[in-house]
């Protein structure tokens, strides 16, 4: 099957760049550094174009110049231009105004949402499995959960775990007696948590690896003239030459 030329060329480029990044597994080398800088440069260029065509043009320039004119949009533009004053030490203090506004806005907006989602909801989630309300009895009666022994044990373990983990991070009280015991228990819960996170992360990283191998396999097919194989051979050869030159 004959591929379109841009797909054929793209396959060689993608395989080459993938192998250059993987070459870091052997040792740091110029091919890796070139690929790394290419990645950073391409990302920055993409970010610039996106900022222009997804935000600045449709949400600022077009409403400003088209009828009806939204002249109030000159204010955020002015604030944005003030940010550039940071590039010069003499005028850098002008950049404080837009940053102060952004920080105030973000802090003010975030507080109620943090309290609602990350504090109240989480406290509710910790206590709710242990406690049941019975409105059908005419008034709310707080009753211990009857979901089953294992569910009750799990809910209790959850509560104990949350409290002891918090105790572990409480540094303003001297660690002795019950506080020390709670802190140690919290540490054990943390070890279980970190172990689980690590185990899960391993599978995630293996999945990312698998994806790259799938691409390299595709680019090693006859339709791409075995790009992966040829480029891998060339790269290994170059790395060997580099190593021999360093030794000499």
């Amino acid at each position, binding site marked *: 099957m004959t591929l379109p030329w841009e797909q054929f060329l793209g396959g060689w480029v993608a395989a080459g760049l993938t192998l250059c990044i993987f070459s870091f597994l052997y040792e740091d080398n110029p091919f890796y550094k070139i690929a790394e800088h290419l990645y950073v440069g391409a990302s920055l260029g993409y970010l610039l174009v996106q900022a222009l065509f997804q935000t600045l043009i449709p949400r600022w320039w077009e409403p400003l110049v088209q009828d009806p004119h939204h002249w109030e949009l000159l204010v955020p533009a002015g604030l944005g231009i003030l940010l550039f004053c940071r590039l010069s030490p003499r005028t850098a203090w002008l950049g404080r105004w837009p940053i102060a506004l952004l920080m105030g806005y973000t802090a003010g907006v975030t507080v109620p*949402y943090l309290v609602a989602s990350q504090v109240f*909801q989480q406290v509710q989630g910790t206590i709710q499995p242990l406690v049941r309300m019975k409105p059908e009895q005419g008034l709310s009666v707080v009753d211990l959960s009857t979901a089953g022994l294992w569910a009750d044990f799990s809910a209790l373990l959850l509560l104990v775990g949350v409290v002891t983990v918090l105790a572990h991070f409480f540094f303003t009280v001297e660690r002795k007696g019950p506080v020390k015991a709670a802190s140690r228990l919290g540490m054990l819960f943390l070890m279980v948590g970190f172990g689980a996170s690590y185990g899960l992360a391993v599978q995630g990283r293996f*999945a990312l*690896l*698998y994806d790259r191998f799938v691409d390299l396999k595709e680019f090693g097919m006859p339709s791409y003239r075995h790009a992966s194989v040829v480029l891998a051979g060339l790269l290994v050869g170059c790395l060997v030459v580099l190593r021999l030159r360093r030794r000499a």
Partner: protein
Amino acid sequence: MGRRRIFLLLALVMWLPMVHPFRFPGLSVTSSVQALHDRIENLPSGANILVSFDFNPGTKAELEPQARAILRHAFKRRLTVLVLGLWPDGWGMTQRIVRDCAATAKLPVKEGRDFILLGSQLGDLNVSLGLGQDIAAVFPRDARGIPLADIPPLRHIRTLKDMHLIVSLGAGEPGPVTWVMFAGDRYRIPMAAGTTSGNVSALQPYVQGGQLLGLVSGMKGAAEYEMLTKEDGSATRGMDSLTLGAFLLIGLVLLANVNDWRKGRS
């Protein structure tokens, strides 16, 4: 064992199923994947769902199969799907995934009627907050450059409150937590998420707290979703490599511990 030998062993072991697929049995569906599947399955035809692609190619190995499985299911259920992205370098990939799913869907799926690619914006919490007020203020045009007012389904969809479900596919900030805080909890919109395996534990508090009705985790979660929708997708095929990689790792760790114990004894 030297580091490079471990790398080589791992690469060989993961490459093997790609040459000779094993199709290991035993995949079973977890409750949180089942919950998301059931929610989408029970949405009426024409219901609105927002899918936020909050990832870049760095995590596409796990999140792209999830996105494809969920999108195909949504298209099959004839839901109206709004798509946007919060990660700047993920938008190119997002468009390709959505249009590819639409092109390969069993029923005809048309951009501008069944799905709308809104665009990608920088600004995490700001985007969710803005969408909660007015979608057209955040995305004046769709990815094709057409003003939202000229897109028929968007004449009845003004804000996030018109969504029946929000699904955030992501593994960092901005991502599922941003959507939970600034959209799900704020406007009481049902929310679900898909995330990488490494980020699953970080989202557990929201799943257990009821803020996320379902969570698809990693490539395994995508494979479970493919099993529920009876599809043979890339995630199912990838589980073989993950299985062998996992067994290799366990074997090497146990071997290293036995070795240490023997050295300690002698």
